[in-house]
Each structure stands twice: as C-alpha cells, then as structure tokens.
C-alpha cells in the first residue's frame, strides 16, 4: 500500500491514503517549491493518493 513520489533523480515512498500535502511534508519537500503531476495532469495538495500511484514532482525554483 504505497505511493511513489519522484523528484529529479530521487524517489520517495509514502503510505497510500494520505493527501499530497501530507506526503510532501512527510518527505521534507517544501510544497511551494514543486508542482505535482499524475499521469501528466496537475494535482492539488488535497488530492488523496491511492495505492500504486506515481506522482512526478517538478521543481519550480530557477535562477542564478
């Protein structure tokens, strides 16, 4: 019963049934620094993650 979060070349596993916001907090990722997509669609932070889902996180910070 797990969900996979992918950010760049890192993978994180969290329990299914939690919201995206909780999953981000659990993995120590600041929600403001990423956008989450599932099957190519954007998802909001209240989305409840289901078993077997893969969430791709896109880092949004750029600069120099």
């Amino acid at each position, binding site marked *: 019963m797990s969900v996979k979060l992918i950010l760049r070349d890192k993978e994180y596993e969290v329990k299914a049934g939690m919201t995206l916001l909780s999953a981000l907090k659990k993995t120590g990722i*600041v929600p403001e620094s990423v956008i989450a997509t599932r099957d190519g669609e*954007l998802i*909001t932070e209240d989305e409840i993650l289901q078993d077997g889902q893969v969430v791709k996180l896109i*880092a*949004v*910070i*750029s*600069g*120099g």
Partner: protein
Amino acid sequence: MKCRKCGGKAAFNMRQHKLALCKEHYLEWIPAQTERFIEKYRMFTHDEKILVAVSGGKDSLSLWDILWKLGYHADGLYLALGIDEGIGYSDESRRLCEEFASKRGLTLHVVDVLGDYGHTIPDLARSTHRGKDKPCSVCGLVKRHEMNRIARDFGYDVLATGHNLDDEAAVLFGNTLRWDGEYLLRQGPVLPAAPGLARKAKPLCRFCEREMAAYALLSGIEYIYDECPFAVGSTSIYYKELLNDLEHERPGAKLSFYLSFLEAKKKGLFAEQREETTAGLNVCQQCGQPTSALDLCSFCRMMGVGV
C-alpha cells in the same frame, strides 16, 4: 478541490489568493492578470514594440506566450551564451526558443556570444577577474549589455523580462539584508528609459514561480527543466528556498513583502543618495552605451582585453 469559477475539478490552487481554478479558467486568469499589471505599472501599450528576452525557461517563454495571446507586438531575443557543462544546456535552451517561435510564427533574434565576441560565458568566467568564482556576474553583465544593444539597434520601445515574484522577492531580500539603498531605489516593475538605456519591464513580477510553472505546463509550453549548471548553489536560490519556507507557513508573505516595498518606495521611504539618471555617465568609446568609466564600458573591456 473545485474551481471557483465553474465548480469543475481544480487544476491549480493559489493559497495566497484563496483561489483554485480549473485548467481552462487558470489559462484565462494568468493573461488577464498580466494585462492588469502591465496597465497598472504603465509598462507598455499595444502600440509599442516589445522585445522579450527568452532563455528557454518557463518564465520567459510563458511571458512571450501571454503577450502574444494578448495581442502585443512582441518579438523574442535569445542569447547563446555557450554554456554546455556536459549537458548541452545552451544548445537545448536555444532549440526550445526557436521551436516556440516557429510554432507561433514569431520573430526571434539570436545573438551568438561566441560567434560575435569570440568568448563563451565559461571562458570568460575562467579568464577574467570579474568571473573568478562568479560566472553569474559575467553572465549578468553580458546579458544586460546585449539585451540593451539589441533593443536599441532594432528600435524596440521596451525590453520585457520574465522575472517573477520569487526573483523579485529574493533580490529584495538580498538588498534589504545589506540595506543597499541604491539597488532598493532601482528595483521595481518598470525601469524607465534613460539616455542610452532601453526601458525595462517585468510583467510577471506579481506571479509566484510556481504559478508560472503551472501556466507553462497547462499551456503545453516545452521549456528547459534543468537549472543552469552555474546557478546551482547560488545565493539567490538559497534566498528563494528561505522565502518558500516562510510562504508555506504564511501564505502571501512573498507578495506582501514585495508589494509593501513598492508602496514604501512610492511614499518616498527610500531617498535618492545621488543623481539616478545617466546624466553623469560617459559614453563607451567602443559600443556607445553608458558607462561610469572614461573610455570603455565593463563589457567592452572584458571582451576586448580580458581584464
């Protein structure tokens, strides 16, 4: 979460505005807000010629897309800086800009810094005093000079850049930490034209970086996800991370920081320490752009003699 406008499934939520929107309404909302900021800060009009500086990143390509959709006369400018670092960074970003322009039938100016001046940014970073351990300093100088040159040479009324709220808040944060009055005075949504210098505008200055990434993704704009290899570990990114921690705890903190600063500046909180015009400046003997030096500007000195 539901779209506030139609009740459909929301694609994106902005906690600082307490506003969630579906894809369709988000893609309407961003251009409408951009138009509002352009008018509010008197950036430019529909009669003026705009040069948009594009890097292949989400912000600049989104800005060009928005201006095009709003019906502005906006051409693009891409500077090929010769940054490879094993990932072909400049080649890929150039390809994305050219593809973007070609798909929409837009005009893109390309300046090849190596072809025109014989140096790449990594070369200059290695060989000059200015660039020593600070490639971003060299890059900034080259970009400012070349963007201004093309804007003037081709008769553009204004140079538009894709700076977003996170960029502006990070710069403001850095300037405030140093209480750098001169830089604080110069920061704002519009930098008026001055002798030898084109007007500059930042139409995205009130949108968070995350909002612009959402716009690019929902619009299907192909942009470069990789960070510039030289920007990794930079101070500006560190400030952005700090501000995002704050934003997470206090939604709206970044916008409030920036807007309160603009308001304070408008009320005269920051007094000019010296003449802010270019009246006291000289003209570079090589390129004709303003400079505080007596003969050559920093750009021409760097390109010519590698000081």
